[in-house]
């Protein structure tokens, strides 16, 4: 049982959840993730650790309500519990002296970029964060990034805030204007693929944090296979970060659709519940958590 200490909405369908996990908080390094189960029969989902506070013994997760599990997780409040939190998993980001480093985050990908940007800044790099969203309210963590001395370039698809257009356009301008030592891309697969294309001709080291389907997260199942430079890698133990110029993004995109039909069906089941039954389901989840916590 892992107690939720804080829970708040920070954008439409995006929640910030702080959960008590002292051992993980102590070990966490930027780039790592946890596997979370929300309910007693729940699936195991990987979520990037956005922040950790070893003193309090907590980690911060950002979750976007897309499928059934993430939607249920988004409805939990402080005082509720997560069934399981395991980690920290994956290799830590390679934080070095790059001079100028750019992190590119699209949508919830900004939450993955955030710990990397912080670590880069703390290591003495000049860090530029290009953060994109559909419209103004989808641009995440701008203030938090700025608070760490990171220059933020917000972009929106509809031009309601910051630059109008894709993050890749802003990136092209940045790498044109100055020497950039490294680019980290985190976000939807097509965006990461596009970032890799922008930096390829200039030969700028570019790292993508991949988000394949996972089960155990410890190298045991191989469900998270990705191809990097023609070689099969397990994103959970060999990654999640890889040389973006070598990653087969098309394969990743395809593999991520493996269970689309199932996911849609389970989401429809959830949506089709009326308010009363929805409340009942949540109560059951909370009830199950509390009973087990008591024993």
């Amino acid at each position, binding site marked *: 049982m892992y107690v939720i200490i804080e829970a708040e909405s920070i954008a439409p369908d995006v929640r910030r959840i702080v959960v008590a996990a002292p051992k993980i908080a102590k070990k966490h390094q930027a780039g790592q993730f946890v596997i979370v189960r929300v309910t007693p029969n729940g699936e195991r989902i990987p979520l990037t650790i956005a922040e950790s506070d070893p003193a309090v013994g907590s980690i911060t997760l950002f979750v976007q309500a897309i499928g059934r599990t993430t939607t249920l997780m988004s409805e939990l409040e402080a005082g509720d519990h997560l069934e399981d939190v395991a980690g920290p998993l994956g290799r830590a980001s390679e934080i070095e002296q790059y001079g100028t480093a750019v992190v590119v985050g699209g949508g919830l990908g900004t939450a993955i970029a955030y710990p990397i940007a912080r670590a880069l800044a703390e290591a003495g790099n000049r860090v530029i964060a290009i953060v994109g969203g559909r419209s103004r309210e989808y641009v995440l963590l701008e203030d938090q990034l700025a608070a760490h001395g990171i220059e933020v370039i917000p972009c929106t698809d509809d031009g309601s805030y910051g630059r109008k257009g894709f993050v890749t356009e802003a990136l092209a301008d940045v790498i044109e204007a100055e020497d950039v030592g490294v680019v980290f891309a985190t976000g939807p697969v097509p965006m990461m693929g596009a970032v890799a294309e922008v930096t390829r001709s200039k030969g700028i080291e570019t790292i993508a944090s991949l988000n394949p389907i996972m089960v155990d997260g410890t190298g045991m199942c191989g469900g998270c296979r990705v191809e990097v430079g023609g070689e099969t890698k397990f994103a959970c133990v060999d990654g999640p970060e890889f040389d973006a110029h070598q990653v087969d993004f098309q*394969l990743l995109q395809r593999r991520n659709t493996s269970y689309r039909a199932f996911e849609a069906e389970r989401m429809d089941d959830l949506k089709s519940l009326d308010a009363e039954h929805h409340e009942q389901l949540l109560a059951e989840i909370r009830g199950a958590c509390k009973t087990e916590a008591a024993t």
Partner: protein
Amino acid sequence: MIKVPRRTLNKLDRVTMPEQDPLVRATNFVEVNDGLTPEQATVEAMRCLQCKTPTCIDGCPVNIQIDQFIERVANGDIRGAADVIRMDSLLPAICGRVCPQEAQCEGTCVLDKKNKPIAIGHLERYVADTVRRYGLEPPVEPIKPSGKSVAVVGSGPAGLACAADLAKSGHQVRIFEALHQPGGVLIYGIPEFRLPKDIVASEIDGLKALGVEVETNAIIGRTTTVEELLSDEGYDAVFVGVGAGLPRFLNVDGENLIGVYSANEFLTRVNLMGAYREGAETPVLDLTGRRVVVFGGGNTAMDSARTPLRLGAEEVRIAYRRTEAEMPARVEEIHHAKEEGIVFDFLVSPVELLGNEEGWLTGVRLQRMELGEPDDSGRRRPVPIEGDIYDLPADVVIVAIGNSPNPLLPATESRLEQTRWGTLAVDESTGRTTMPGVFAGGDIVTGGATVILAMGAGRVAAASIERYLASGVWDEVPEPA
């Protein structure tokens, strides 16, 4: 006990395990074998010759006093039989179901020469199930605490066996499990229809009753390191039994198409995550009416083939590069698989996995093989028949060709020396690793093997941990007499 003349008993055939009809069981996840009836068990036990020097005991990796427990079954003393087994084996309900008896105790039974070996595995299971069903286990005696504590990493058969022995000696034992549920391969790997999960759960409950603590979601090497277990957390010794959990793939084109699973992933989705249940939160590809090809010839390959049948697959084939005689699976599993309608393609090897433009698997390309000269393992090596290649349609492929040791834990502790196969280097007779205070056993030492061998290794390590805790001197852990 009723006196029956030996010559009458000699005429009797080996008992036949009552089982679900193959066509019925291929549609459900209920256990295949029903278990012997009391009458069957008694008669089977009476068939035992009670040899003066029982060869079966030598065939058992943990040397259960087989003749003695069988004698008690023949006399109707099931509790006594359980007491005999318990002296050497802590997981009889599990081992009676999953041990390769034909290669162990039953293979060395004198009656094996007449093709009628005593069904030792079935009897072991009968004893374990009977005491469990009727609550005949002896009450847990209070154990005097030794004041020592041991961390057991991994809750599979090696870890459970090690933990049990140490707990009985009064040591405080805590098991660390990476997944959210303890049991290791017994939970995520072996399917419900072969090893019901409530049996594993009850074995683990038995350990908890002895005072063993179980911590899930604890990934040693990540959440906590082995070094920290010894230094910060103050354990007096550590046992590493993390198994061989890094699936091998075929190394052919098309391996990352959608529809290609490792056996670990497929079985974990179904067994641990319950993907076969109505309303499951974890998906597995819909197999209704689908064609499945499984690569491999071990027990995991049999499990990976029989599970899709139960999920509605139209046709399931096992493709193996040697012949049936070389298959490492238990004879009973091969027999059950055939009965259920699994098709076996022998002497074939995958050349390529075929897919469509959307990245989904559509078939497999196979190379026909023939047996050549024996290789290092003594088995005749399969060699390709030049030009004899054909395609089979397939919607799902499950790769069950074995596991390599998972490097996650060894990679985080430089003092744990590895062999060139990635297994942990240990002193075989004591389970001592190259890191003081740390012992290891099971698949992380041997590479993929069996439940009983892992259990045996867990017990060997427990015995030397015992001696180490008593002496406190690492270099002088005496070898067992």
